[in-house]
């Protein structure tokens, strides 16, 4: 049960990479700028999702 819950989120790192790369490529033309912006957005999105996940885990643990 736990494993099946985790495995549906295995796509997420790849999706995070794709979304940040595509979004950054629509904002810049030069590849070094695109990659830097993509890295920044990747970190921001990962941080946001990690925080939400940690809060939900904490809430479920306390309940």
């Amino acid at each position, binding site marked *: 049960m736990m494993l099946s819950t985790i495995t549906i989120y295995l796509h997420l790192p790849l999706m995070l990479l794709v979304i940040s790369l595509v979004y950054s490529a629509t*904002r810049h033309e030069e590849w070094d700028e695109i990659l830097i912006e993509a890295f920044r957005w990747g970190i921001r999105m990962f941080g946001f999702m990690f925080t939400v996940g940690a809060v939900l885990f904490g809430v479920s643990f306390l309940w």
Partner: protein
Amino acid sequence: MSSAPTAPPKDAPPEPSMLGAGLSYLIPGLGQIYQQRYAKGALFMVSLLGMFMVGQSMGQWQNVYIPREDGGGHRSLVGSLVLRWHYAGQFWIGVAAWPALSHYYGPPPRDVEENPSFWRRYQRPPGETQLNEFIVNSDRTPDLGWVYTVIAGMLNILVIYDAYAGPMILAVPTIPRKAAAPQPTMESKKEAVA
């Protein structure tokens, strides 16, 4: 006498291109390839179509559709989109989402098959019983699947804008930073006092 045309500055936004935008709507990245921005075009095409297809496969290829019938007959497009708003986002991926429109506007299926082939059920609205069985018997994967297809469609709006007017950051005029004023030294302070 003719003078050679001056090349536009590198950071200048390109001329708006309706053709590029239209091509990028049809197939993500095609407008950029037409504009000879091959690497970006390939990135958009592979990423967005890949994400859309992965999302569809997670929903067993039946999460991109427009419901066409209610109890009384053919439902209006607006009514269908209120019921199934996901398609308003999925539509922007372009040609890849057109089979759903074709099923919506096309003739109703003549017979309900037990196990229809892949192409017959591709983007066709699933039956209520089939949909309930699928949702009850699967984990959260189908939900994640339609999210991916909607994200791919929404991102393609940015790609269409990029093909129309170039990267967004070039459209914002950059303000050069002012040179920092030199800090006063002790000697200059003494001179000012004297």
